[in-house]
């Protein structure tokens, strides 16, 4: 791996020697180090089971939800070690979007957007709430579609709309970085291209780290790409360089469809 992908100036996130094991000694992510650039889209690629989701979930300490998961190494978000941050602060800074849209079924569209405030008991004035909801929904280009039905349940929306709602829910907290785990794999091509356009637009204000199985998607929208294999970070660099001139044989084989 090139030295400059580990040491960039003012990264939004520094991953250092990150290893994660579900069972003792059996690492799903092995000693990964990388710096993530601000205001860009970074794609994480690799064959199924190579540890992409595991790495992404380490970044907002999602693994703490389950027992027996061992995490080693350090993650520095905006210059601060994530283990030193209160959970709520970390998760506000690192918003997460999942593979399947998962709006809260009991909440309205409106309440889903501000769910982070509501469920944490953070009080906002009505005016502030309205502003957060409108801004977040506009950011994900959902506002015009739902502005008259804000008080309907979020689960009445189409899959693609639900996923944009889930992105709005993450944006409402004004995060530094947005972590997305295959956010379009459950969506049809039209909904997928909407989300892709959206991510490109969002990188003006946010840093985006996205797991994807879809190489053409990575090529279309990402600025930087990581290629992981069997838990290791094999290659990391500018997407253009990686697609035109992969340095590692395994990257090349993956990109040319020889495996994965």
């Amino acid at each position: 791996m090139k030295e400059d992908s580990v040491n960039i100036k003012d990264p939004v996130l520094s991953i250092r020697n990150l290893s994660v094991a579900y069972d003792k000694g059996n690492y799903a992510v092995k000693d990964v180090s990388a710096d993530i650039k601000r205001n860009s889209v970074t794609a994480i690629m690799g064959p199924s089971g190579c540890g992409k989701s595991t790495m992404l979930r380490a970044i907002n300490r999602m693994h703490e939800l389950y027992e027996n998961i061992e995490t080693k190494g350090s993650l520095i978000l905006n210059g601060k070690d994530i283990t030193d941050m209160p959970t709520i602060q970390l998760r506000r800074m690192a918003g997460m979007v999942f593979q399947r849209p998962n709006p809260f079924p009991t909440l309205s569209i409106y309440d889903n957007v501000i769910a982070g405030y509501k469920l944490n008991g953070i009080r906002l004035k009505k005016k502030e709430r309205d502003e957060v909801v409108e801004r977040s929904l506009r950011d994900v280009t959902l506002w015009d579609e739902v502005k008259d039905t804000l008080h309907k349940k979020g689960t009445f929306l189409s899959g693609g709309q639900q996923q944009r709602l889930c992105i709005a829910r993450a944006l409402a907290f004004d995060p530094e970085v947005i972590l997305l785990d295959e956010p379009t794999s459950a969506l049809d091509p039209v909904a997928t291209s909407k989300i892709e356009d959206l991510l490109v637009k969002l990188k003006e204000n946010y840093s985006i780290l996205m797991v994807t199985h879809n190489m053409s998607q990575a090529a279309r929208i990402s600025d930087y790409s990581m290629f992981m294999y069997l838990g290791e970070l094999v290659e990391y660099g500018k997407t253009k360089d990686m697609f035109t001139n992969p340095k590692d044989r395994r990257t090349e084989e993956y990109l040319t469809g020889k495996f994965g």
Partner: protein
Amino acid sequence: MNSAAKITAANLSRRTLKDKLFKGLVLFLSLITISPIVLIIYKLVEKGYRQISLDFIIKTPPNTFEAMTALSNGELIPGGIANGITGTLLMVVLASVIAIPVGVITGIYLYENPGKPLANLTRNISDILQGVPSIVLGLIAYMWIVKPITSGFSALAGSVSLSIMMLPMIVRSTEETLKMIPQSIKEAAVALGVPYYKVILRVLIPTGFSGLLTGILLGISRILGETAPLMLTALGSSVINLDITKPTSAVPLLIWEFYNDPNMVDLIWSSSLLLMGMVLTLNLVSKRIAARTK
């Protein structure tokens, strides 16, 4: 060719005959299954409806002599079963107040710790509890409450025995309901930094609310008609009693008392009709809730 065709035709008619016989049998057996409930409701309505009136709900039962006089004059038996209705409500509410928090919290614990030995033990014990004869639960409440705490028969003792009956149903339905909520909903809340107890209280319970409610309503409809444990605990009372440390009546207890008094027999039917109506309503309501959320 010709003979093969004949055989097929013969087969076919035999098959249609078998088919018809089978359908007839199925129909017959389903009629047998539903006939008891139809006959019961028919009988209860036929014999009980005349007694049902406002008085029946707001007055206490007559004494034997009044009943006998009314009977010999060919009149309806005066009075009602207000002591039983209030007693049943009191004890069911109290039993729910005890059983719902304990049952829901235990159910959450089982859901959260699926493989743990203590959870497995709890689940098994809860299953065994479901099969314990209700009279035994009455005995236990007698030993725990009647003797040491209320020093006498009491609504509290009745409620405790009923709450033990409800408990396994609530534990099970809570665990099963929570299990049906997708993990992704839970993770969505965790990813927003919501602390764990709030995830349970503000996301999982509201999401599974109708499932929990269904379990609770079925639990209540299960204990509404219980008689045996109440005989050993609440005993019964001829007046309306709202003091939980005192003997208290209940609709099923009254039915038993009416049965033992030849002059009061007519009241059995109307009381049973009322009880049956309450149980059926609860069952239908919980079915509606369960169906609406599928």
